[in-house]
């Protein structure tokens, strides 16, 4: 588990992106540097109760969050955070997760 979530920041205009892009959609710069964001606010949540092709699926929570840098990303929630909650972000194998800030 890594603290924070990697984003890719355009060297030219400093806009941060997640997931990674090839050209910046704002200035079309082609050089990015990796940066990290550590916090986000939960905007919408869902509980995935059924998964096609799975018979022993355990419900999981996901959320659309807005990071402190402005990106809207989808994370797995590892607690019962509700919309409006400030969460801390972390990564597992390049996938973003979050839980309420302690």
């Amino acid at each position, binding site marked *: 588990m890594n603290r924070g979530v990697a984003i890719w920041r355009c060297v030219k205009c400093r806009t941060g992106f997640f997931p990674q892009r090839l050209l910046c959609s704002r200035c079309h710069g082609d050089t990015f540097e990796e940066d990290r964001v550590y916090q986000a606010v939960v905007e*919408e949540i869902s509980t995935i109760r*059924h998964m096609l092709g799975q018979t022993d699926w355990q419900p*999981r929570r996901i959320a659309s969050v807005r990071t402190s840098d402005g990106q809207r990303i*989808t994370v797995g929630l590892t607690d019962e955070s509700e919309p409006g909650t400030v969460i801390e972000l972390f990564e597992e194998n390049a996938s973003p997760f979050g839980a309420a800030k302690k």
Partner: protein
Amino acid sequence: MPSRPSVDRPIGASAVERDGLLDVDVLACRGGRDDLRFMQAVRRSQDDRVHIPIREELLVAVDQRQLLAAAEVFSRRARAGVGEHEAQVFALALHRCDQRAPPASQSYDRGTDHVSIVRASRGWDRYHRPWLDRPLSRAMTVRLTSGPIPLNALPGKIMYTNAAIIGVGQSAYTRRPQPGQSTHTFIRDAVVAALVDAAIDPREVDGMAVASFSLAPDAAIDLAWKLGLSLRWLVQDTNGGSSAMNMLGHALRAVETGAASVILVTGGDATGLGGYAKVAANFNIATQLHLAPLGHGGPNGVYALVTSRQMKTYGLQKSDYGQLAIAQRAWAAHNPYAVYRAAMTMEDYLAAPLVADPLSRYDCVPVVAGAQAIVVAHPDRCPDGRAPVRVRAHRASFNYDNQEGDGLQTGISTFAGELWRAAGVDPADIDVASIYDDYPTMVFAQLGERRFPLNTWGGMLSAGQPGGPAGGLNGISEAVLQLQHRAGARQVEAARLAVTTGYGMTLYRYGATAAAAVLERLE
């Protein structure tokens, strides 16, 4: 009738507008019954100069330079209020261009007129063999009038006059494909049905477009081989829920420009539920890396979040989505191909188990195995006694906002006004609508507050979604059946205009491809 200015003005090396007449050199014609009328008129002429009222559906082909010069004249006349119809007639004329007109295919924008210069299709001589024996260069005079033009009774620009949908077909739909059934066999069944419907011999097919999530490792060429089709135009589209609309656009342009004359547009899938789960988890790199490991539930999870956002933004209740699902189920009761036809009440809808909050069972499109096909060809190829369906306008959008919005609009928002203007109709003119409906949320996102008889085959929510690609073709097919007045118990009375949409390819947070078309019953 508006007064016409009297002018004598050169508009090209050998084209002159004079007192309401346009003198041009005619090189050749191609096409169908309209050109036959033109040719009959030419044959009646005594001195290689003919005067043909627009009411006789004049269509004329001239060379590229003259077309461009004449386009200027027609545009000026249209802007001066002499008559919008004249510009339309000219656009029609351009679509009857000589096969010798260089270059092979070009497009020009001249003011409000979109002008295509095209190469005639292989096979045009079948219709105009006598014409081949005549001198190709001859002078003629076009009489301009501003009277009604039968082919263009509605104002606006017509994108496609030589291409129309002439037949539709589909396979059976099933939730669980049986041994021996595959994507290929479902597509075969749909193709056979469409060709029978269009009264087209397979040997006449010279173009095909296909889209499928489960055709691999085969590709379009493998399908052509296995269907025994020798083609000169072949496309494979990978844009999911808008693939059908994309392929329709490609096919129309191909027939219009002569790249092919009879095109099969088909799509289908038979992944089974487990197979679809694999498709959903490996939809693209972003999904593989950043969504599937969360257990995001495929598109159900993505659109659950979009639905929550939509409910919050517009103050919608769960029952608002239920109204749509229930209405479509009522239509499905009259569709023998629909996988769910039993009537549904609001109590049924609200009691359904949650799949991905707030989406419950009846909000999530049921994955089925099946396929659809349509046939695009010159309208004259439409079986006798049946109205071909023309596309008045077609627009598409890809990655319209870089996934930086809220997903409550679609790429349709970038071209909706342009689509209606190009079609020359208003939303209020539409008789029936096929709106891509993998989730009720996305129907609202595409439709806004407009009201039409909607998804009259039951929509994918009740009839089933045979993969995203064919999932768009079923909406087009239903619109065609409605406009041809062949929809049986589902028939919308005197349907004449339809709108169809496609939406798909969830890149990360919502769909990134969208397309729409206005279809018209061609009398």
